[in-house]
């Protein structure tokens, strides 16, 4: 097992799995901190992945593909805002509907636009290539992990401290935290919590869109029906576990990403695919259980003032 971890090609594959989860979870963190119970990250991701392929196919540029992915995610965020914030729909109901909407719409549009069933790949889809970081190559584990990845991975890494600073020091970050904790305080100060939450949802959509772009135009160069495959749900769990704090999110995303890529690896070692497919979900459950035990232990000790 250890041998495997030090296998450079394994190490190099970890970021491919970390990036979509991390980006989606950072988006989810915006919602979580703003008091929007958004469990539609799966749908946001999927729409982002699809929009990335559309943008990249028609423009020939992966960057425009990423932009399209962000717009696709923002569009989903606006749908969420319309039905949850403006019309007052229950966030769980709206999330379930959006997840179904994304699944249906991407498959429908895949056939409507590309006339493809199930999957679509074409040389015209321009993907992100690896970015080489000079001077990293000789490091044993860190070298392959942090060198030669897609630009979206580096973006995701930079996004963590930025998000942390945003929540601590930025005007909107402060208001987002207030909207999540005591929105009445915002109302009394003359700021509409609804508007603050709208911004959070839009930001969430953009980040999830980029996560989707990593799936479709950085990891591979194609779109497959339902290609988010539960990663949005894992991001939801990561957000719930960390209560939307960026640095712990980074850690959790790396844990999940490693398990994800590990399961991909051991498949090659002869374990039935069904068992390796299960691993991310079982790992998620295990992390959930461990953390809740740990938290329970802390409250039982009372935590002296």
């Amino acid at each position, binding site marked *: 097992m250890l041998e495997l971890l030090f296998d450079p090609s394994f190490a190099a594959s970890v970021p491919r799995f970390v990036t979509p989860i991390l980006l989606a979870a950072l988006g989810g963190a915006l919602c979580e901190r703003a008091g929007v119970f958004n469990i539609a990250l799966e749908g946001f991701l999927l729409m982002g992945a699809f929009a990335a392929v559309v943008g990249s196919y028609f423009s020939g540029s992966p960057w425009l593909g990423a932009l399209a992915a962000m717009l696709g995610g923002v569009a989903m965020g606006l749908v969420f805002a319309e039905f949850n914030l403006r019309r007052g729909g229950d966030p769980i109901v709206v999330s379930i509907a959006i997840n179904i909407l994304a699944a249906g719409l991407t498959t429908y549009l895949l056939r409507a636009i590309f006339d493809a069933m199930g999957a679509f790949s074409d040389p015209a889809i321009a993907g992100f290539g690896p970015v080489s970081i000079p001077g990293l190559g000789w490091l044993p584990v860190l070298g392959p992990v942090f060198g030669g990845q897609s630009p979206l991975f580096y973006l995701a890494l930079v996004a963590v401290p930025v998000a942390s600073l945003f929540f601590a020091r930025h005007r909107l970050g402060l208001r987002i935290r207030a909207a999540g904790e005591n929105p009445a305080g915002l109302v009394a100060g003359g700021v509409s919590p609804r508007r603050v939450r709208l911004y959070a949802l839009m930001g969430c959509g953009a980040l999830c869109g980029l996560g989707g772009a990593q799936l479709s135009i950085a990891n591979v160069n194609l779109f497959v029906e339902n290609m988010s495959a539960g990663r949005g749900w894992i991001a939801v769990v990561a957000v719930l576990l960390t209560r939307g704090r960026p640095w712990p999110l980074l850690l959790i995303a790396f844990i999940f990403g490693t398990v994800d890529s590990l399961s991909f690896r051991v498949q090659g070692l002869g374990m039935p695919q069904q068992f390796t497919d299960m691993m991310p979900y079982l790992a998620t459950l295990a992390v959930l259980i461990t953390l*809740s035990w740990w938290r329970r232990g802390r409250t039982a000790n009372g935590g002296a003032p």
Partner: protein
Amino acid sequence: MRTLRESAVLREAVSWGVALAWIAGVLFLLMALVGAPFGEALSAFLQNAFGGRRLSYLMATLSRAALIAGMAVSVMLSFRAGLFNIGGEGQLVAGGLVAALAALFLPGPPLFVLGASILAAMVAGAGWALLAGLLQLHLGVPLLVGSLLLNYPIRYIASYLVAHPFRDVQSGMVQSHLVPQATWLPYFPGTRLDIGILFIAAASLFAIIYSHFTLHGYHARMNGLSPAFARTVGLPVGKLTLQTLAMSGAIAGLVGAVAVFGVHHRYIDGMLVQPLYAWTGIIAVLLVGMIPWAVPLSGLFFAAIQTGAAGMERSAGVPKEIALVMQAVIILFVASRVSGALVASSERRAGGGEGA
């Protein structure tokens, strides 16, 4: 006062009209995108949902509706008790898998095998639901997350079992052997509709009686309306949670068994997951705001959309995924209206209670 009420009714009607217009608008836009002829598509939709030679399509709709309605009833029991159990899919798969395997390996007269297999399926569904409940009560995993995550392991376990140890290799497909023909549910005379729908009808009847007329149902609903209240007045919340989940899961397991004995006659990999029975069941419950008697009708409605869309695909070239979009958009408009009314009234309450 009367004019006030009349104008409220009018407002209500207008906003429903606007919602319908929006739904229709979205659909026409999508159809225009693929250049489908509207009229043809619409007639194909209706024909396929309710028509067919000797009403064969209607029968297909009903057969699908039975499964969706069954899942809806299962989910409803949980939701009314305030338990966001979205693991219906896993419970359904557990039921279907166990039903097929039990029927393949149990000895005895066919009727006994059928009965025992259905029972085993219900136990399996209940067990899988209980697992999510135990995770919440004893290990602190929120039910919403735990029940969802449990969908995946059982899906893959089932897939493994019918891909390796219990695979019908000759068929070349990832599926189990056929269950003995004598255990197949018979068709209604002169139709192609199996009697599985009767099992679902019985489950629905049970759910309606349970929700409205039993002490357990009353207590579960109090917990659903306000968990803090249920705890405060000393209702056994933990026990209530587990029992309700077990009932929910048992019904999901029953649906899985009906799918095996009535429709597919074996367990095929993905046969219960791909058609999104569980998710459609959830939105069918949400559509009617958890009113017990309306839930089966709502299931029928969504089944009609799905079979209708399949007809549109065949006759007018509209991808059948339009059904998913249609369902999602309907839920967005309808569920947000229903819960919006709830939120508005609770806000008014809070304002009135505080004493301005």
